[in-house]
């Protein structure tokens, strides 16, 4: 599989993620979009490792790290969303402006 195909796919995935993060109001969907961006990056790592032909599989190892950290991040993020929902009965980011002056 040529590298370009993979790069096109991952770019598409990343852009979908960016759109989701910037445009959607639902906090849960925003978190899912972040996941999309991370996974696009993971795919890049693996693809480039194959192209470079590194026997130590550094790309794969990085992808594993990213997955692990993404899991932790998602845990924290969902916990925050849950608390926001408990306090203000909404998960719409338009209505949550706590990070204000």
């Amino acid at each position: 599989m040529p590298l370009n195909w993979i790069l096109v796919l991952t770019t598409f995935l990343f852009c979908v993620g960016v759109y989701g993060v910037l445009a959607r109001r639902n906090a849960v969907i925003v978190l899912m979009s972040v996941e999309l961006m991370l996974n696009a990056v993971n795919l890049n790592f693996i693809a480039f490792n194959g192209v470079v032909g590194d026997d130590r599989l550094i790309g794969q190892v990085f992808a594993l790290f990213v997955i692990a950290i993404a899991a932790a991040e998602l845990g924290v993020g969902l916990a925050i969303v849950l608390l926001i929902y408990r306090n203000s009965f909404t998960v719409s980011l338009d209505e949550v402006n706590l990070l204000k002056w």
Partner: protein
Amino acid sequence: MEMAFVVPVIAMASAALIWAIGKRFPRRGAEIGVGAMVAVLLGSLLVFFDTIRHIGADPDFHGFERAVTWMNFGPDSTLELGFHVDGLTAVLMVVVGFVALMVHLYAASYMKGDVRVTHFFATLSLFTASMLNLVLANNMLQMLLGWEGMGICSYLLIGHWWEKHENSSAAIKAFLTTRVGDVGFMFGIFVLFWAARSFNVAQINEMAAAGDIARGTLTVAAVLLFCGAIGKSAQFPLHTWLPDAMAGPTPVSALIHAATMVVAGVYLVARMFPVFDNASDIALDEVAIIGSITMVIAALLALVQQDLKRVLAYSTISQLAYMIGGLGVGAYTASVFHIWTHAWFKALLFLGAGSVIHAVHSNNMTDMGGLFKKMPITSITFIIGGLALAAFPPFAGFWSKDELVTGAYEAATHGSTAGMITFIAMMLTAFLTACYVARMLALTFFGAPKYDEKHVHPHESPRLMTYPLIALAVLAVAGGWVGIPGDLNQFGTWVHYGEEHAAFNPMIAIASTGLALAGFAVGWAIFRLGRVKVDLQRTALAPFYRLLLNKYYLDEIYFRGIVRPVRDGLSRAAYWVNQHVLDGVVNAAGIVAVKSGTFAYRDVDQGLIDGLVNNLARFAGLAGDKLKFWQTGNMQRYAAAMFLGVATLVGAFAFFRF
């Protein structure tokens, strides 16, 4: 001798100590003064004998000098603080130490119960310290320090009883009159410094003797220095302060007249003698002429005074003029010898006069008389002092005076006109001196009592007063024996200035003693025996008598010619200038200062600097106020901004191909 500087320091410390803690003592500080003076006398004697030993071992001994640098100003100008001991210094130190001790002892009794005893003794000690400093000083500025120190102490002591206006006036007069001379002294110092680039006395003298200083410069310096001596030693025409200085307590008069203050002028001329000797003849001739004039006019004035202390004051002026005249004719040793003998009998006479005044409560001889039997010790010692003053052998005054007269005679025979004048004046003064001594003794101690016998009961003074009298009387007799002509003449080896020592001339001695005897006889005949009853007012001498009574109108002339123009004209002008010009300048300076201060505070500090800081802060606050609205709290906007930023960076990297 190496530690000679300790002597004035002791006296100085005594003054400080009396001022600090004197009041707590039972005698209110007198005991500190007396104790310190004992130490001063002992120190002086040690220095004296050590110096004599050195002179005996080495006839070329030129004195011992030690100094530390006081301050440096300029590459070759150093001011030292040091001392210089030679025969002259040592002799003067003994005189000062002994007379100061006697005066302190005497004053401890005389001033007992006075309102300001503590102050009196402190000043007395400081006076002694100043004189010792002057005598020991190795440079001219240090001499000036002692010189002016005595000026201020004499002012304080003459005005000791300042409650009476005439006393404080006398103090001011003494201070100001001597100050006239001091100006000359100071300029003399400046001239010598300019010529020799040094204040050091020994160095200046050496340079003067070696001819390293131009004769004209030396002459100017000598005349200026002598102005100082005229003021301090009360020579004509600045002698008028001394009789008025009698306003002070009697012990002060004794100290001023015998050992300090007035002797300082003679000492100055003696110390700087090489300067005078190597200047042109005018310098020493001027000294001799001034001395001659003064000795005669002062002796004449002494004849007509009613105040016992004033008689003595004029006799002091006259005797100082003897020394000055002696220096003028080059009789150096004789002059210093006369300082030495004069100190003993003049201190004795003053202290004796104080004892008499203490007994009859009056200064006037018209209130005395017949005291011989009531006050035997005072009377006998006083008469000894009087005979020494009149220069009868073998009393001390005879030996020194004879040397002086011989010196003047020698000068006259060598063709010096000034020497001739001095010789004649000295002979005349010898006659007059004996005459007023006879008058003084007759009026004070003999004849019928003239005091109010109902209220005044004269009695002998306490021992503390009579013992100094006895001690001084012994010296007034024996003090001159160190200078007996011939092989026994010790004094000439102690103090000398290379001059040919005038040989003892029996004719001169007989002539001067004969004149003195004649004078004494005349005085005694008129005032004791009443053989000659003349009312001077009615004779041809009346105008002359009035002239004497009015002290040659000198005080009057000074008052009309100097005091009044200065007081009414110059002082007023100075006051006007002070009020209008100087005050104007000062006020203007003040106003400018206030204005610029206000400007600096209000405009620069408050306005500019504070304003800058405040405005910076205000700007930051304002900017924050406006910019905070960018922080909406909407997380997605933040994220959008972040992506924008990342996109920009990526774009930039891609574009510039880093």
